[in-house]
């Protein structure tokens, strides 16, 4: 094998696109050729540095908004039962639909609409028989229930010892997308903790806002958006948020 041939095949070796036979030939050449060996080492180093430091760009929010605005707007979200039926079917079609639901990137620009959808979802959940799809105070039962239903399963943390009882989990629908809800209770008050993936990986500190008589505490971290919705007072909801974040932090460390 000449150096010129080796240099082209070397690419495929680095990229894992070479069959075993050719891979061995290239490796033999490299073993006996310092020049090609240096190239192989440097190309691998370049790939590693590029992967480590990142060379991609993030689309400006304005571009996302422009594209969204040019597309027809989604109709009212289908009800949750219909979504669940879709999952329950277990057919190839519903499996495809489920993977289609992966990219749960909630847009930041439509905050008001999302907040009112969250409150609607919270209200729906309070109707008889709608609060939980999986009823359990055990985080080890609730967490795996979400697996496969959402691209990223929400973190499920038992805060019973901290004064907030975990009572289950639910699949809900917000902003025309499937979203995980972890349900807690304090005294007679229900807290829905909605969790969705976001493209923004930076941590955003919690903020509480009031809407239609409910408090919404929103924060994001680790590429996830969290909204705790409840009729609890703002101070107690803040306490919930703080304890949840602290527990998540200590679980990670």
């Amino acid at each position, binding site marked *: 094998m000449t150096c010129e041939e080796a240099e082209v095949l070397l690419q495929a070796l680095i990229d894992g696109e070479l069959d075993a036979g050719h891979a061995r030939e290239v490796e033999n050449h490299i073993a006996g050729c310092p020049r090609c060996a240096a190239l192989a080492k440097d190309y691998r180093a370049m790939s590693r540095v590029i992967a480590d430091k990142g060379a991609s760009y993030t689309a400006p929010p304005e571009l996302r908004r422009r594209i*969204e605005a040019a597309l027809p707007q*989604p109709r009212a979200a289908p009800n949750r039962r219909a979504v669940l039926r879709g999952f329950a079917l277990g057919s190839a079609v519903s499996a495809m639909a489920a993977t289609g639901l992966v990219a749960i990137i909630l847009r930041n620009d439509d905050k008001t609409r999302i907040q009112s959808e969250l409150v609607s979802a919270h209200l729906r959940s309070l109707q008889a028989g709608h609060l939980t799809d999986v009823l359990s105070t055990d985080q080890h039962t609730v967490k795996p229930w979400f697996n496969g239903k959402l691209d990223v399963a929400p973190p499920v943390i038992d805060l019973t010892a901290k004064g907030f009882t975990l009572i289950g989990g639910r699949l809900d629908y917000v902003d025309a997308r499937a979203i995980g809800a972890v349900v807690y209770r304090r005294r007679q008050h229900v807290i829905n903790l909605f969790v969705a993936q976001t493209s923004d990986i930076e941590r955003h500190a919690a903020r509480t806002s009031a809407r239609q008589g409910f408090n919404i505490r929103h924060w994001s971290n680790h590429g996830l958006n969290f909204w705790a919705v409840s009729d609890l007072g703002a101070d107690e909801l803040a306490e919930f948020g703080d304890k949840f974040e602290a527990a998540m932090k200590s679980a990670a460390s």
Partner: protein
Amino acid sequence: MPGRRIETGRAKIFAAQTGHEAMKASEEDPEKARRFREAALPYLDDAYTLARYLLRDANDAEDAVQECFLRAYKHFDSYRGPAMKPWLFTILRNVCRAEYARRADIKTGAIEDVADSAEATPLWHEAQETPEAQMLREKDSAAIRRLIASLAEPFRETFVLREIQNLSYREIADVAAVPVGTVMSRLARARAMLRSAWLAEQEQAK
């Protein structure tokens, strides 16, 4: 070459390609829009990244990506594969080609001509004078982007599709409409050029 044309001209050029004002009125299908959002919008950053490298201009990249998504939406009914990302990239590449052609009209010396002559020069050239003992040093993200952007077409395109977008050779070949062998030789040259530029830069920094 920023500032070489007026701001309002640009949007018109891209919009004229599909006439998506008309599309909006005639294709009000919320269910299709929902499916499209879920399937395509997750690749917005990837598409924007590719456009930034292909066009080397932030504003042009934005316009091209917008045009790409609107075209993709238009053709979404007939979409049967390949994977969504390469499919979007193929559309985006066509949009960018149109932009190249337009630039070539404005400025003499089309980008394609430069690319062809660069492809004709032997692979061999860059790497040989580099001393083997030299260590490739780390670079920050901005420096890496600048180096990649300095690569000539079509090596830049091939390199970005492989190293940043993680497409397979087969997918790259389909997107760029060339044989897999060409993908490999372009990649070999891209990496050789990038390595030379990388080493030359750290040599200068000494």
